[in-house]
């Protein structure tokens, strides 16, 4: 068994090395291609090479769910035997049986597989309100050669993000205000034209990237009476050039994370920016929301990665005149753009830093006797500034949840090994199974340094009672981050609704905040008539010098509630109040959108809000970018 892993490990490393080499060989080809892709700006399908084909088509509905997360072919379900299963072929978990999911699910939420709440199977097109079109605007777009459509399905698709209430409504077949028209610019110049025309005809523009917003940012404001046009950036998805001397890449902002990463990998590079939503979220979206990636400890967050931004606003195009790595030229105008959430304009092109692909990657995990010890360890790691590419600490509930998602073990031997491990940790080491928690780690770099780094981190962990718990556990943890979003849809089939939300908080407040927010959720659910205690858990997902990012998951069984959505929204609201009362921020990387707008003044002070408002007033006096986020 041990030698088996060794072999596969060696194979993995070899494959990776091969890719790096291949990338280096390809680079001249890529360099030549730069001119070509700039010319191809107008064509509907810019590239013929299948390797470079984009993952998201114009008709998103062809491959993605209209009322749930992700790809249509991938979903969790309980099969006829009542076993959990993940369909499709895309993920490592795809096609696998998850034997403990049912028990965990029923025990955690007090649900029964007998009680189903299936979603409306298909989108009822007749329920979609007819589009309110400004004919001359549409005409001029056509003349300018910009693709546009008022197909109802496409409009519904772009009328929402992935907040619980948005998906819940769709599952019930309820459709609110949707955009009246969808346009697909192909390049920066298309966007310039669209914005000009929107100003000319006073049309409301709402930029749309990957559609993964969880802040109600994509909801059409109800009070908007103008024609609303969704500006879908997905076709602006080319890498325009790679500059190996300066290690930068210039990319159109509509590119989605996985495409960007895959294409750069082919050249032997990466940006290292990997938000959990990277399969679907776009570069422009990251910039507009101040995104954060899992491996920010090595590569930085979006604000650290961006070198140059080009944005089209009603006032014209904003960009810097050079690509100097740092400037003292007054307040950084990038910081008006980053986090503007589509209220000022459309980000069209971005220059980002890139890094050579790491030679070696290694996962890891550590078990701690309790959450407190785990947090202390992360704090120490941050103090010594030796955080691996990623380090995440799950609380006990999430640890158990992770176990529920373990696929069927192939051999008796593995299950025996698992049993042995469990025995060692709980009986021999005296860890209380209901207190212990686990940290997952990802190391990156050259092999030598990774191993050294790994030792350093495990040594620190040992001081806090942490025990190394193997690579598999760590790897599974990271793999789960991509499928976890699918799980909510499963819950919603069985009366369970939930959501995740995040914050950032100084180190000394982490424990208090986690405890109080979790408890507040439990309390509020109880007070609002939720029959079964909610699933209320958290994890620390990022470490910084002065604090950490904390993620909460919260879900409950809503059987017996007259208005579950209202209950859910109140509880989330109270949880956010609790976060703010405990020194947490309004958001670490999800953004404000319309969901958290009410707290903005408190968060940045009246003067701060006024500053932002005055920028908006100057840049967009007629509120063409009228999604009403943030301010």
């Amino acid at each position, binding site marked *: 068994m041990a030698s088996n892993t060794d072999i596969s490990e060696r194979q993995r490393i070899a494959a990776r090395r091969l890719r790096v080499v291949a990338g280096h060989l390809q680079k001249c080809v890529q360099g030549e291609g730069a001119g070509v892709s700039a010319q191809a700006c107008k064509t509907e399908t810019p590239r013929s090479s299948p390797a470079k084909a984009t993952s998201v088509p114009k008709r998103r509905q062809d491959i993605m769910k209209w009322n749930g997360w992700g790809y249509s072919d991938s979903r969790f379900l309980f099969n006829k035997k009542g076993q959990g299963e993940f369909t499709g072929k895309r993920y490592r978990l795809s096609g696998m049986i998850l034997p403990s999911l049912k028990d965990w699910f029923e025990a955690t939420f007090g649900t029964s597989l007998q009680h189903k709440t299936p979603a409306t199977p298909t989108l009822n097109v007749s329920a979609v309100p007819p589009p309110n079109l400004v004919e001359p605007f549409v005409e001029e777009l056509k003349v300018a050669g910009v693709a546009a459509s008022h197909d109802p399905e496409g409009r519904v698709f772009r009328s929402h993000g992935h907040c619980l209430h948005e998906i819940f409504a769709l599952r019930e077949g309820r459709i609110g205000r949707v955009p009246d028209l969808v346009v697909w610019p192909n390049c920066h110049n298309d966007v310039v034209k669209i914005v000009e025309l929107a100003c000319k005809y006073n049309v409301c523009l709402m930029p749309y990237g990957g559609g993964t917003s969880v802040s109600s940012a994509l909801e059409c404001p109800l009070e908007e009476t103008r024609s609303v046009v969704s500006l879908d950036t997905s076709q602006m998805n080319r890498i325009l050039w790679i500059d190996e001397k300066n290690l930068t890449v210039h990319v159109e902002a509509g590119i989605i994370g996985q495409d960007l990463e895959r294409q750069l990998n082919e050249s032997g590079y990466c940006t290292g920016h990997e938000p959990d939503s990277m399969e679907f979220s776009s570069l422009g979206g990251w910039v507009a929301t101040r995104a954060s990636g899992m491996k920010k400890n090595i590569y930085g967050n979006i604000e650290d990665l961006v070198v140059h931004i080009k944005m089209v606003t009603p006032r014209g195009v904003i960009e810097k005149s050079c690509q100097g790595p740092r400037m003292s030229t007054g307040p950084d105008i990038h910081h008006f753009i980053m986090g503007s959430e589509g209220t000022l304009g459309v980000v069209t092109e971005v220059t980002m830093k890139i890094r050579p692909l790491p030679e070696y990657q290694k996962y890891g995990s550590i078990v701690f006797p309790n959450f407190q010890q785990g947090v202390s360890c992360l704090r120490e790691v941050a103090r010594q500034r030796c955080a691996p590419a990623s380090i995440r600490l799950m609380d006990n509930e999430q640890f158990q949840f992770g176990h529920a998602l373990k696929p069927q073990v192939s051999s008796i031997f593995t299950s025996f090994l698992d049993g042995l491990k469990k025995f060692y940790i709980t009986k021999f080491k005296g860890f209380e199974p209901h207190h212990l928690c686990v940290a997952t780690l990802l190391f990156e770099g050259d092999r030598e340094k990774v191993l050294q780094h790994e030792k350093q981190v495990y040594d620190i962990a040992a001081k806090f009672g942490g025990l190394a718990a193997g690579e598999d556990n760590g790897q599974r943890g990271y793999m789960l981050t991509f499928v976890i979003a699918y799980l909510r849809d499963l819950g919603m089939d069985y009366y369970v609704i939930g959501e995740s939300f995040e914050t950032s908080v100084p180190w000394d407040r982490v424990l208090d905040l986690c405890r*109080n927010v979790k408890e507040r959720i439990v309390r509020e659910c109880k007070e609002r008539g939720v029959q079964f205690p909610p699933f209320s858990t958290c994890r620390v997902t990022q470490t910084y010098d002065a604090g950490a990012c904390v993620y909460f998951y919260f879900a409950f069984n809503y059987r017996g509630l007259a208005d579950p959505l209202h209950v859910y929204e109140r509880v989330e609201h109270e949880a956010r109040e609790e976060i703010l*009362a405990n*020194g947490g921020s309004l958001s670490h990387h999800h953004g404000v959108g319309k969901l958290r707008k009410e707290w903005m003044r408190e968060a940045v002070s009246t003067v701060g809000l006024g500053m932002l408002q005055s920028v908006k007033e100057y840049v967009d006096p007629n509120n063409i970018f009228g999604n009403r986020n943030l301010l």
Partner: protein
Amino acid sequence: STRRGIATTGRLNPKVNPGLKKRDELEDMLEERRRSSDARHALRCYAPAVYKGLAPREVSALRGAVLQSDALQHVIGQVSAECGERRELVQEEAAHLLDEMAHRLRLGTVRFFAYVLSKVFKTLFRSVRVNEEGVQRLQQAIQDHPVVLLPSHRSYMDFLMMSYILYTYDLALPVIAAGMDFMSMKVVGEMLRMSGAFFIRRSFGGDKLYWAVFSEYVKTMLRTGYAPIEFFLEGTRSRTGKSLTPKTGLLNIVMEPFFKGEVFDIHLVPVSISYDRILEESLYARELLGVPKPKETTSGLLKARQILREDYGVMHVYFGHPVSVRSLAQGRVKRSQYNLVPRHIPQRPCLAAQALVGEAAFRLVRLQEQAMVLRPWTLVATLLLQNPDGMDLPVLEEQAAWLRRLALSFGAFLDWPDCKPCREVVGAGLALHKNLARVSGGRVRLAVAETPGVGQTAEELAFDRAVGVLSCASYRNQILHVFIRPALLSVALRTANSSRKDEVYTCFNFLWTVFSNEFILCPGASVQDFEEACYLLGKCCAVQESQQDIVMSEGGHATLAFLRALLDPFLQGYQVVCQYLCKETEENLRENKFVPAARNFALQLILAGTLKCYEALSSDLQKNALAALVQLEAVTKVKVIPTQKPVHARL
């Protein structure tokens, strides 16, 4: 604006009588003790449920956790910088202070106490009645949240009894904040320490280090859910039977961990402890008359054994509903105010927090008052004090029955056995308190001497009488909280120029302000109190309310007269204090000279026969009166040098 307040709120929310809550049944906890072995009780397996968040490690590491805490380290740094002392020395000093203060709970000592107290309590009391539902609520609360126990304080018995009850019901034993006084009793002090008491100096105003050690000690125990914290809101034993104006120092400390987000919630549990007869009865009366309190000594305690020979009737302990600090603070205190300064750095609480703590303190004391079990004797004592010349027994019985109905309609928690005839009930009270009231020839009167005994001066006689009256008054005082608001209104009705509501309220408000130190009247609640008084008097048909006016009803005379008479000793006493201050010629009257001088002034009036009210001699009343006059700005206090505070009369 207050007047508008009366006109509108009075009609908008018809007042629900706050006293008429459903109360739990009380069970005698000594019954079990009389049936089974005390030794076995003391040695039984004791495994209380503890706070769910308590890590076992924290119990043993308490001392280190306090001494190494960021908060204490910060102050140690400050102190060492300020006085140029080496940091290690200050650290040592802090450790020393902590050792002087800290409890050293030992189960062995607890078991010893459990044994001895079983014997003692069985001798002293006929029964100790506890609301077991309250105990169950407390048990749950202890597991869910850090808990603060807030018993009323009438006797040294209070905290012994509290711990005894918690031990008996298998609840986590509290750590108790006690005054340093006990430390003078070497052995007993150490015993108390080992049963969970920790000792704080009576005053440490300027001592930053002491304050830091103390508050961090309390907060550490609270944050970790180490054990329930117990302290007395009133600060000291009430010598008068009335609740004392609450002190907010410790309450501030225990609420802070919530404000700073260090705990999810804290539950405050008011506990009402009431006695048929207080052990310290006549001691208190003497103290009020200026005989210094005997020092707490071990030998003194041994002498007090004679106490064991007497019958102290029944004791009642009522555990109130836990009050959640979180819900108190809801919408009142912004916890985010602590976001911008590290939490270990001491910060003055914001005004909203201060106001909240003050209000909570009063509210909790009122909750204590409302759950105090009142015995029929308190009614008898009230009537006897109003009739110093004595009453015919049948008349007394009849009036007691009347007063019982009145008290019940005002929501008193009166423990009057329904099945027994009135005569028996009154008789039982008189029998238990035969040292205070005498029955002879079918007439009942206070047991005070009529003529001076052999070799007794007139002064000594007056003193003896005063002891009798004040002892008796301490029982009447127990029931005052039931009547105080209607009583203030009765007097206001008499003194107001018209029956217009706003004028009556003006008079009411004046009296309310004057007596705000004497009785538990929540600051700023005079309008609510007025409404409550109107409601109660209306309910017992003593007054009639219309839109504008409030007048006495036809049958209301007796009730109003009784209520006015209830306040009479206080009105007289306050008048005497005013008279004294007017006559006092000395320019710079020192505060510590005020009480003896005022007492002497009152004594002269009594000896001269112009004053019949012995309660005017009470130092408690005199101090309260002075405090009221200072508040009303009729008198000013000037600080000269820290130890001597002269009082200027400026009436």
